[in-house]
């Protein structure tokens, strides 16, 4: 044999999580593990249940396990990542002594599972927004993708837009409103909020578009055609998030997505135009529930199964280039790592491109864009690159000396 098991590095693939995109994350992770170079790496699936508890075990590689949730959890090991630097492992918890009364009955040796690299495959809250990245930092482990600040900035749509706007990347005018303003005197405060929105430069005319400030996957978004519609749209968005963004609605629009990966310098994939079944906004159903484009393919293949036109030949090459170059700049300005997908909207009336959002952990890791890029990048190679880049970053960070002392206390 040319390859042996003992040399393989363990890659903890984390997925699921306390997020509305829990299920999509499972698809992303299972696809990713399927494509991973298992000659070099040993994937260790780590499933974060909707409760927030972490589990691991090879059973998690089978789709069927997720049919019987939460019952199937009982067969799995519950693990945690302790914030203690230097452990480089997951700690198994919930171990109970079997004997009970023996000398060692009250205490059981801790079981740990060594991990070389943590590879988050979460989408949305707690996994894509800097939270779990914060835990990785505390534990001082190697992890793939964007760090705390770049994840958090990416996922806060409003902050992200304002930041990129300050670097001359075109964005739609917008305002952020908070649910807290409605806590007292709901009716009158909603009217005040509406007035404040309509007074904002660029937001004076309907239709407007309202979306939760941090969610993804088109959950809680709606279009407002008049004052009553705006009230309804705000209340809908507040069902899913404590803050909402309002911006002008582009009625005659086209969406363009581009993926960017970090290599020695950032590289951009080909562009895609996602296709909606209704001709309107892409819905959650469009993104994840429609049957895969492949004949006889699996019922759902996540973002990879979405109907889309990749690198459309009839799209103005100037627009393509613009999207790719803005995407690279946004990725670098925000300080992203690993792979991200940057979504743009084109106002077809004006021919103007707007940055809409950046996903620092995109569905299916956007591999379907890379395999169609020139030259084609295999998913396996993307994963390897992401792991190697993560190891390089960790090394670089470790070389920065940190001097922690107690001198000031005792001066």
């Amino acid at each position, binding site marked *: *044999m*040319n*390859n042996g*098991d003992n040399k*393989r590095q363990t890659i903890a693939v984390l997925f699921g999580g306390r997020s509305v995109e829990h299920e999509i994350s499972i698809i992303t992770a299972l*696809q*990713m593990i*399927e*494509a*991973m*170079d*298992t*000659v070099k790496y*040993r*994937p260790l699936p780590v499933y974060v249940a909707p409760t927030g508890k972490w589990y691991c075990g090879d059973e998690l*590689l089978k789709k069927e396990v997720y049919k019987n949730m939460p019952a199937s959890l009982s067969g799995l090991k519950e693990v945690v990542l302790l914030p203690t630097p230097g452990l480089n492992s997951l700690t198994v918890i919930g171990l109970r002594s079997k004997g009970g009364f023996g000398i060692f009955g009250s205490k059981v040796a801790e079981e740990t599972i060594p991990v070389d690299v943590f590879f988050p495959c979460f989408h949305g809250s707690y996994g894509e927004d800097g939270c779990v990245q914060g835990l990785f930092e505390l534990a001082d482990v190697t992890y793939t993708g964007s760090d705390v600040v770049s994840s958090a900035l990416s996922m806060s749509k409003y902050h992200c837009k304002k930041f990129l706007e300050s670097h001359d990347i075109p964005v739609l005018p917008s305002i952020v409103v908070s649910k807290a303003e409605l806590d007292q005197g709901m009716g009158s405060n909603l009217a005040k909020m509406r007035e404040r929105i309509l007074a904002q430069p660029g937001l004076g005319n309907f239709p407007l578009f309202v979306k939760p400030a941090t969610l993804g996957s088109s959950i809680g978004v709606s279009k407002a055609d008049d004052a009553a519609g705006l009230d309804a749209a705000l209340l809908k968005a507040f069902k899913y998030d404590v803050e909402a963004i309002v911006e002008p609605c582009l009625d005659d629009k086209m969406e363009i997505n581009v993926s960017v990966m970090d290599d020695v310098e950032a590289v951009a994939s080909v562009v895609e135009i996602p296709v909606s079944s209704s001709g309107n906004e892409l819905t959650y159903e469009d993104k994840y529930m429609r049957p895969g484009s*492949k004949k*006889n393919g*699996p019922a759902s293949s996540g973002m990879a199964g979405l109907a889309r036109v990749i690198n459309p030949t009839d799209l103005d090459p100037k627009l393509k280039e613009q999207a790719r170059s803005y995407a690279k700049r946004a990725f670098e300005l925000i300080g992203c790592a690993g792979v991200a997908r940057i979504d743009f909207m084109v106002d077809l009336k004006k021919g103007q491109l707007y940055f809409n959002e950046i996903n620092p952990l995109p569905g299916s890791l956007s*591999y379907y864009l890379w*395999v169609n890029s020139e*030259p*084609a990048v*295999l*998913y*396996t*190679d993307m994963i390897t690159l992401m792991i190697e880049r993560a190891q390089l970053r960790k090394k670089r960070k470790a070389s920065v000396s940190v001097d922690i002392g107690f001198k000031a206390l005792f001066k």
Partner: protein
Amino acid sequence: MIVAANTPVLNTQKIGSQGHPILLMHGWGQSLYSLQALGELLGKTHQVHLIDLPGFGKSPAPDEDWDTKQYAERIYQYVKENNLKQVDLLGHSFGGRVSIRLTSAHPEIVRSMILINSGGLKRTLTGKRKLRAKYSGLLSKTIKQIDKMTGSKIFENWFVPRFASLDYKNAGSLRNILVKAVTEDVTEDAQKIKNPTFILWGEKDQETPLESGERFHALISGSQFVVLPGKDHFPFLGDGAHLCARYILNFLKTLPGE
């Protein structure tokens, strides 16, 4: 055009126009569809010919009960019909047997051979295997019944890709060919092969176990062998196609003319 009795029409699908031609041959009970995802990835840089072997997919069955040597001859004719000077051959399972037969009989038209969890080496049924054969027969019956009752397609979509090569009952008119194939042993032909050979093997294979891969590696001089941990008899299914493509392309890169 008169098609000779022993020359059934081959249904094929071509992907990609640049690079060296490579022929992809599927396993028993499969069709070119099983290798399509892999073919699409290889097609980015190579001229891929996906082949429905006679009796599978959209290729009509041969008039007589062929052995794998006859299958190999049909593929040889295909190479000639298409004016291909030299090809890379990729065979999975049953397609691997055909590749070995073809390479051994006509080494001059083969630039290299790639075997994925190939069949061709005989072995005795151990108790466990006998049991599995029995189990799979029973399971197939049950599943077919469920499909009939509920209109589901579990048999076609789940059972066939996993168990078909074990299921003698379902070989239908090809049953005699299957019996020929599984009782054949290609050891002698494998030993003759001098062409560059790459052997890729899903480790957790119940049908063609890892031990067969190791034996092929020993039989074919100068062959390269890569084991894919965690993968089964179909390492190229789903996004596993990317992993297989990575190792296949690594191998192809080392060949003259790349």
